[in-house]
């Protein structure tokens, strides 16, 4: 602060010639420091990769992924480069069964997972070796023990426009869609927020801090653990399923009653 306030009584009203530069340095230091702090909180406690894992991962990659992503993982016409995507992206894509893709389509579908967690971790280690990228965070960032109310509010503001307020999912353009979020492994929710798979935007730590991400995960966990209080939720799809229900079962049922009541009259 001493550097940034050099104004002496005799030169009052005028800035020191170096004031601007000094302010810039302080600003940069502060931002950089904060950024380093913020990123280090998410990446500090990551699982160590052994050379063994990396080697195993390289073999798995060459056998299962290289045909689309290239033998050096630098991408081909069929698949994007994986340099710098990090182990977390691998964990999300392979851990949810989205990768390897069964067929080209508007987006990769969730399907039964093809690899064991060790194999996924190995591939993640190999991809992480290529270039630094988002790593698997410490468990406390996706433990789901955060502030549910804050998570719900963050969810409404950041997620609900695609995934629906109750996490029922929603449509995107050209056959793409935001999937439903019921009963998703918390690490995959975390991974999706950090790596922004497919059409999803990246929610960096500057946007949602790791604690806030945990809050969002806590809200999703709350929905999973507390089923609808008002009875069957009809898919949590809102007025459309309610309207269909009242026409088909409500009015349909009552029309059946009217037919029954007047059946013997003729």
């Amino acid at each position: 602060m001493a550097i940034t306030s050099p104004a002496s009584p005799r030169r009052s009203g005028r800035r020191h010639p170096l004031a601007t530069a000094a302010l810039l340095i302080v600003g940069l230091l502060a931002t950089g420091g904060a950024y380093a702090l913020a990123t280090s909180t998410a990446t500090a406690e990551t699982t160590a990769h052994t050379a063994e894992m990396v080697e195993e991962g390289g073999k798995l990659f060459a056998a299962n992924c290289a045909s689309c992503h290239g033998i050096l993982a630098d991408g081909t016409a069929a698949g994007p480069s994986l340099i710098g995507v990090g182990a977390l992206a691998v964990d999300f894509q392979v851990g949810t069964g989205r990768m390897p893709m069964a067929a080209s389509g508007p987006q990769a579908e969730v399907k039964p997972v093809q690899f064991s967690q060790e194999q996924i971790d190995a591939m993640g280690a190999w991809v992480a070796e290529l270039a630094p990228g988002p790593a698997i965070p410490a468990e406390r960032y996706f433990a789901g023990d955060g502030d549910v109310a804050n998570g719900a509010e963050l969810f409404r503001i950041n997620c609900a426009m695609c995934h629906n307020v109750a996490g029922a999912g929603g449509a995107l353009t050209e056959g793409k869609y935001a999937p439903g979020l019921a009963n998703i492994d918390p690490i995959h929710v975390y991974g999706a927020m950090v790596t922004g798979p497919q059409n999803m935007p990246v929610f960096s730590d500057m946007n949602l801090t790791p604690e806030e991400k945990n809050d969002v995960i806590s809200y999703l966990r709350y929905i999973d653990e507390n089923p609808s209080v008002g009875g069957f939720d009809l898919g949590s799809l809102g007025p459309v399923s309610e309207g269909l229900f009242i026409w088909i079962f409500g009015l349909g049922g009552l029309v059946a009653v009217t037919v029954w009541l007047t059946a013997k009259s003729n």
Partner: protein
Amino acid sequence: MSTTTTAPSAGTATQAAPSTGMRFTGWAANYIDERTSASTAVKTLGRKIFPDHWSFMLGEVALYSFIVILISGTFLTFFFDPSMTEVEYSGSYVPLQGIPMSVAYHTALDISFEIRGGLLMRQVHHWAALLFVASVALHMLRVFFTGAFRKPRELNWVIGFLLFVMAMALGFTGYSLPDDMLSGNGLRIIDGMIKGIPVVGAWISYLFFGDEFPGTQIIQRLYILHIMLLPAITIALIGVHMLLLIVNKHTQFAAPGRTNDNVVGAPVMPTFAAKAGGFFFIVFGFIVLIASLFTINPIWNYGPYDPSPVSAGTQPDWYIGWADGALRLMPPNLDWVIFGYTLPMGVLIPTVVMLVFLALIAVYPFLEAWVTGDKREHHIAERPRNAPVRTGIGAAAVVFYCGLWAAASSDLIATHFRVTLEGVIHTLQFITVVGPFIAYWITKRVCLALQRKDREMALHGFETGRIVRLPGGEYIEVHEQLDDYERWKLVAHDEYQPLMIRPDDNGRITVRQRVRAGLSRWFFEDRVAPVTQREIEAQKH
């Protein structure tokens, strides 16, 4: 002689000992009648005859669900506070604790979570509202397709139409009240439609909301509309609707003994009243059953209204869906910019189209009466096939409405049937614009074909499926004649013919005349002549 002597003695025996209850009833009835002349009304009303057909009970479903709405709504008013003052949520729903929200949303949540039986009542109210509008719509379709709006019931059709509009207005103001995110988004769309009106739009919006959207007034204003003005109008209209129903008598389907000049059915007292009363409880019980098993509008999911977030799958309740769909189906980039002012055609065109559609529904009976030149009274409900053009028009309107309606769920159709959103929109645009013409044509053809089938049946009987080989080797299928009761239903309808163009007193043929004759030709050019008595006689010999 012996019988005449015993009869009075039996009479005196019964008169001798009326029970206390009977004496009290007689005295009370007499007391009231001497002061109100109620016996005249009871006699008239009690002897009123209502014909029996399942489709005649749809209006009853509407009436009974409206009563359920009144009862459950009254309960809700005890606990709901429509204030938009900001408070912090302190109720028992964890994901909202500590979140700032309006008092309206807070009390709506309290009804759901803190008030005993409150959630059930909320769900009864909302499900009953959906059922009310749905049954009104189905009732309208029944009246339309059976031609029950014809003279002398045109005015009652208009009142029924107003009730349909009231039902939509009640529904919209109702689901806007909880001030959750979904209802706020709905209001935002209405605000956008109001602001889209050229010149006066912004003024009307500010008047309505009392400020820039959303302001701090709107929930209270909607509340007054929802619990006072609109229900009062609706109840008054229902009163007139029922009165005209009694004055005009109920229509019936043609059958032996059921003619244009009588009504065959059960009298109000006691049969119909007992049946209707029972049916009321069936409807009430059915609604409560649905409300206790299925959740509706889980407002706690949506969170308090905040103008920035919009959830995926945000839709209005079903009866406003067609308006939402109309907005979704409009192609983009149609706005006109005049002297720096933008006319948002993407909003204006759907608004105008919907208003015209509603106006056509309202005036249809008068249009048809003018085109057909039919000034007779009609108390026989027509079978839809016997009015092919009207049935075709109805089918076209249904397809048009359903196209718009489906468009409101375009995103859910896309995700659930795994098709592209763009594909859904383009398909529904086609269905809404071209579909009505296709539906009209197909329906009209089907109606004419069914008429031909009826004619065939009336004249030659029905196919028995019994194949007989004649001595000459020829195979024939034996037809069996219908009995007179069955045949009556097939032959009891009028024949219409296109109107002739006639010159007026000055010997001129006006444009009006030509238009009318043209429309009349459109209605009745393609027709199947009803079976005449002579044809039936000729067939018998």
